[in-house]
Structure formats: C-alpha cells, structure tokens
C-alpha cells in the first residue's frame, strides 16, 4: 500500500449563508410599488423580444389614453426608432433609462426614474423593458402588471422556446397578427402554448398596423 503524505492544509471552513441574490431588488420593487400606490398610479411593465412591437404598442396606447388620464413612459430600450419619437411627440413625460450592461431593467433604475418626474398628475406609467427574454419574476420593478408582447414574426415556437417569460406575466399580447398568414404562424396554436404554461392567463391579439385589438388592450389595462 502506498502512503501519501500531504502538507497539512490551513483550516477549511464551510459557512452557511442563505443569502438571496434577488431580495435586494425585490425590496426596492416593493418601495417603488408603495410610492406608486400612494400616488394612485398604475404601472405596467412591458416585456418581450426586440422588435416584438413594444414601443409601437405603447405609442398606440398613449394616443388612446393621454387625453383621458396622465400617462408617462419609461423607456429602457435604447433602440432609436421613429416610434420612440412618436411617443415623445405626444407630449407625455418620457424618461430614457440607460442600463449599465444593457441587460434588463431593475427596481433601482425604475426608482431613480420615478424620482425624476412629477408624479402628482400621473395615473399610468408604461415601462418598456429591454428587449430581452428573461423571466419577469426575477427582476420585478414594482409594477402593477407585467405584459409580455410576442409577435407572430418570432415564429410558431416562440412560447415553447422561452417558457419562463410567461410564468410571471399578467397579460400576454400577441402582436402583428396582420402578418400571421404571411408568416404561416397559427395564432391559435401560439395561444394554446401560452395556456399550457398558465391556463388562466389573458391573451389579447393586436395589430398596430390596422388597429385590431388595441381598444380591447386599452380597456384591459385600464381595468388592471
């Protein structure tokens, strides 16, 4: 038998920590939420892939809502498009939020944005999250509802490929339905996939091109 002799190591410790990495953000999210609640403001976190139509949808919703109630938009998505200008041109407060690593919005950044604008006249804030398919449960912002936008141009299997997105969503918008037949995507199958993940999740079909579903979406958001 071969005996090996090892240099005695310094003492090794094993420390139990139980330290949540998501807790700090969750705490700030709660603070954002209570600030918003105190002002009677509903906020809506809009998530979804780049190009799914988040900016365009928010623009259409702002058009419909701004004469009825105070609306503001936080834009976490750095893409510059004519639609982003469209929101700015509607004379509602817009705050551009730049993230350090361009990854996702967090409650701290949203908290900073909330301190930048006059909350007293607002009733609704749209927060356009970065076009990134992370799960909303991971980095809550303190919003009242999380909307996931999926467009038919992302293909038939978008929901199956990114299931986590939908578990923490309160509402799903299937956008660009005007392109469904050109894309050979079945909207029914896409929605069936959403309901496999979360049976009671509300899904609204929209087209920013011809306006289908935008009134229904407006009404649902006002009911939130």
């Amino acid at each position, binding site marked *: 038998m071969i005996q090996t002799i090892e240099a005695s*190591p*310094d*003492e*090794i*410790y*094993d*420390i*139990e*920590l*139980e*330290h*949540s*990495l*998501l807790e*700090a953000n969750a705490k700030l999210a709660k603070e954002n939420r209570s600030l918003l609640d105190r002002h009677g403001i509903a906020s809506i976190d809009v998530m979804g892939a780049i190009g799914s139509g988040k900016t365009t949808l928010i623009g259409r919703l702002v058009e419909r809502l701004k004469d009825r109630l105070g609306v503001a938009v936080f834009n976490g998505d750095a893409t510059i498009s004519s639609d982003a200008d469209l929101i700015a041109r509607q004379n509602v407060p817009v705050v551009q939020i730049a993230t350090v*690593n*361009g*990854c*996702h919005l*967090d409650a701290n950044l949203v908290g900073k944005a909330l301190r930048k604008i006059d909350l007293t006249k607002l009733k609704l804030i749209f927060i356009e999250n970065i076009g*990134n398919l*992370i*799960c909303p*449960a*991971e*980095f809550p912002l303190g919003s009242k509802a999380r909307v996931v936008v999926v467009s038919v141009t992302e293909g038939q*299997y978008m929901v*199956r*490929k990114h*299931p*986590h997105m939908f*578990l923490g969503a309160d509402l799903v918008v299937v956008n660009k339905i005007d392109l469904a037949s050109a894309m050979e995507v079945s909207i029914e199958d896409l929605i069936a996939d959403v309901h*496999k*993940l*979360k*049976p*009671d*999740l509300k899904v609204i079909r929209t087209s920013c091109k011809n306006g289908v579903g935008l009134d229904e979406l407006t009404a649902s958001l006002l009911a939130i």
Partner: protein
Amino acid sequence: MHELSIASSLVDSVLEFLDAHKVKKVLTVRLAVGELNCVEAEQLCFCYTAITQKTAMENSTLEIETVAAVVQCPRCDYRGSPKYWEDARSAAPIPTLECPKCQGTVEPIQGNDCAIKTIQFVA
C-alpha cells in the same frame, strides 16, 4: 445576459463577506437556483469565472444546485410538484403553472429564488 448581473451580485456579496472575515482563499461557493428561474448554469459559471479573476475568489468553484418548484392551487388546494410540459421544444421538460389536479392556474411557492447557500474557504 441577466446571468452577468446575477454573477456580479453574487461576487459582490461574497467579497463583502470576505471583508468581514479573515479569509485567505475561497474554495467553493454553492448557489441554489429555483427551478422556475431561467438562470442558465453554464452562462452563470462563465460570468463567475470571468469576474472573480484577480479577486480573493479567483479559481474558486461555483456549484449550482436546483431547487425543485412547489406550487399551490388556490382552487383545489393542491400543493406539490408542478405539472411538466413534456413535449415542449426544450432539452428538459418545462415546469408549468397548470394545476395537475384541476387544470386551473397554480401559484409558485418555491422555486423562484436564487440564493447563496454556503461558502467554503481557507482561513
């Protein structure tokens, strides 16, 4: 790329711990990731290795364990494992929020967190 921000908050927390204690070298960090979280282990380890360089955590190992999801049904009171979607186009079955008993929507009560469990170090 949210793995990068999770990795940096992980490393910040551990380094903070090291400051407060007498630590020569970190050997292993064990992380528990909830099944309902979409943290990608491989990407997380990659980020971890990159940002621990030239810190007291350099060359330490990140061990990731999965915490099983537990769901609860507000309608029929079912409590237990989620129903899995077997034929989805992903490597592993996907946990869903459909109640295995009554087909309603369940609420997750475990499996959403991401937490440091233990740190093994040489003092």
